[in-house]
């Protein structure tokens, strides 16, 4: 069931009389039990988009459907009620520094006007869930970053939200705490079946958690796909730059400049990732496969891998090798020479052959 549906959302800011289109005609929807990733480089408009979703920022136009209502048309009192059905966690945790852990978690309940009698068991349950019962009387400044973010998660979950918004929730954490918070979020999704919109500029965070990913650039969603498909067949330059961002130092297109032979990015799904396909075609079609780069990624749905390969040999032999790979389910993308900025046209082997 669809938890939130966003239609043609726009938000721009005026800066020195020029309009910055921070969110530019964005549409998407997220289902129950789904983790939807929004990735993009810094300045892409991700934070503005989340702040529009809970109407902390008023969008210029567009619709946000949540709980059967178009939030954009609601008055303040309805918005406040809906906001707490939409938990949010932040990059810098944004805990109330002068309230104890207990009071931080209790805050949304108090604001909702619940009685202390009802609040106590709920807060205790939440603190137990995040494993910080022993720190109930501590102040946030006495906790590590990872612990603070767990308090943030408990506060966001206090009102039993249907949707959890996470804006760079792990970006301020070290790898160990990132791991901890991510597994906590995974647990939340599995236990509660709520929807999550996970915003990050770190591809490794998105790939560890997301079912589906949208890539943002200049306020627009430029590409949206399941994680596996995105890794197999990244269509947009930003996507490829972000995928390589965490495992390589140079853009894939760079490899096309290295050799005059055609260079391909071969994407392997979980079924093909372990098979010796390259040595197989090498033998059968008499082409030399020169492997320039490669990687395997563990994703939620299974492992995917890719190789950057240049083929040398008769043109026909190379075509034959490519169609054989295509039949085996390998995603093939021809990398055009350039400075790494070009979009790299996705070519299916079949089209190549003709």
């Amino acid at each position, binding site marked *: 069931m669809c938890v939130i549906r966003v239609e043609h959302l726009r938000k721009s800011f005026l800066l020195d009389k020029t309009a910055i289109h921070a969110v530019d005609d964005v549409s998407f929807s997220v289902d129950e039990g789904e983790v939807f990733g929004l990735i993009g480089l810094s300045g892409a408009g991700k934070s503005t988009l989340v702040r529009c979703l809970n109407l902390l920022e008023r969008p210029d136009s567009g619709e946000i459907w949540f709980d059967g209502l178009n939030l954009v048309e609601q008055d303040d009192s309805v918005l406040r009620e809906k906001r707490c059905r939409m938990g949010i966690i932040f990059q810098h945790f*944004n805990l*109330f520094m002068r309230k104890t852990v207990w009071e931080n978690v209790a805050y949304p309940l108090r*604001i909702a006007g619940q009685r202390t009698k009802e609040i106590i068991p709920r807060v205790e349950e939440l603190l137990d869930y995040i494993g910080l019962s022993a720190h109930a009387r501590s102040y946030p*400044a006495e906790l590590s970053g990872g612990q603070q973010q767990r308090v943030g998660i408990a506060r966001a979950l206090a009102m039993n939200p249907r949707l959890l918004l996470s804006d760079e929730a792990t970006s301020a954490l070290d790898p160990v705490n990132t791991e901890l918070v991510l597994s906590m979020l995974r647990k939340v999704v599995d236990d509660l079946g709520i929807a999550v919109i996970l915003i990050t500029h770190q591809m490794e965070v998105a790939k560890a958690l997301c079912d589906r990913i949208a890539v943002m650039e200049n306020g627009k969603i430029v590409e949206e796909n399941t994680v596996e498909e995105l890794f197999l067949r990244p269509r947009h330059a930003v996507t490829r730059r972000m995928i390589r961002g965490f495992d390589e130092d140079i853009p894939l297109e760079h490899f096309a400049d290295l050799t005059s032979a055609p260079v391909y990015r071969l994407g392997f799904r979980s079924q093909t990732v372990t098979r010796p396909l390259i040595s197989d075609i090498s033998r059968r079609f008499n082409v030399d496969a020169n492997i320039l780069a490669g990687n395997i990624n563990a994703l939620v749905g299974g492992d995917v891998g890719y190789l950057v390969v240049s083929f040398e040999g008769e043109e026909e032999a190379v075509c034959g090798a490519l169609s054989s790979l295509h039949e085996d389910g390998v995603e093939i993308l021809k990398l055009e020479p350039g400075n790494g900025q070009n979009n790299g046209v996705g070519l299916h082997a079949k089209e190549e052959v003709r």
Partner: protein
Amino acid sequence: MNEFVRATLETVYMVLTSSIISVVIGLPLGVLLILVRPEGLRPKPNLYRAIDVTINVLRSIPFMILMIVVFPLSRLLVGRATGTTATIVPLAILAIPFVARIMEQSFLEVDYGVLEAGLASGATIGQLVRTVLIPEALPALVNGVTITIINIIGNSAMAGAIGGGGLGDLAIRYGLYRRNSLNLFVAVAITIAFVQIVQFLGRLIENRLRRDGTSPAL
């Protein structure tokens, strides 16, 4: 009654009353300022500019001048232009803009993200002010009030020179005019002790409030 005891009580009365009045009016003004700032939660740039200019003008008037200027107002409000009660009027008038500004500065130190977290939890602006803005800024607010009271003590001593009563009046009449340096010394010593006590109590409360691991008091 001993002259010194009477003068001290007068000063305490003047200082406390005008401090309370200035905080009761200045704190809401500080909240208003932070909300209507151009980048605030309820931006009203014109209103902000108007209050901002008024505060700056009031704060640049020397206390003596202000006291004379508000003689008619004092007469209107408390029935007389001189004396302890009458002096409360200029003391409070000068302290209100000071308190408003110092509260605004304290509120500015509260991280915007923390306010956003409050709003995202479903708080109204009023709830946000009461449950997040003021509590989060409290140590800085206490510090601001301490500075305000010390300023008022200084001004109240000055008020003594033109018929304001209290320790300043005592120092001038008994100390200066009668050339009794012992009296002058005692009046000054009591004033200094008064400032020290306020300073000490302010620190104490502030330090207690900061026992949450956030930044230590200066």
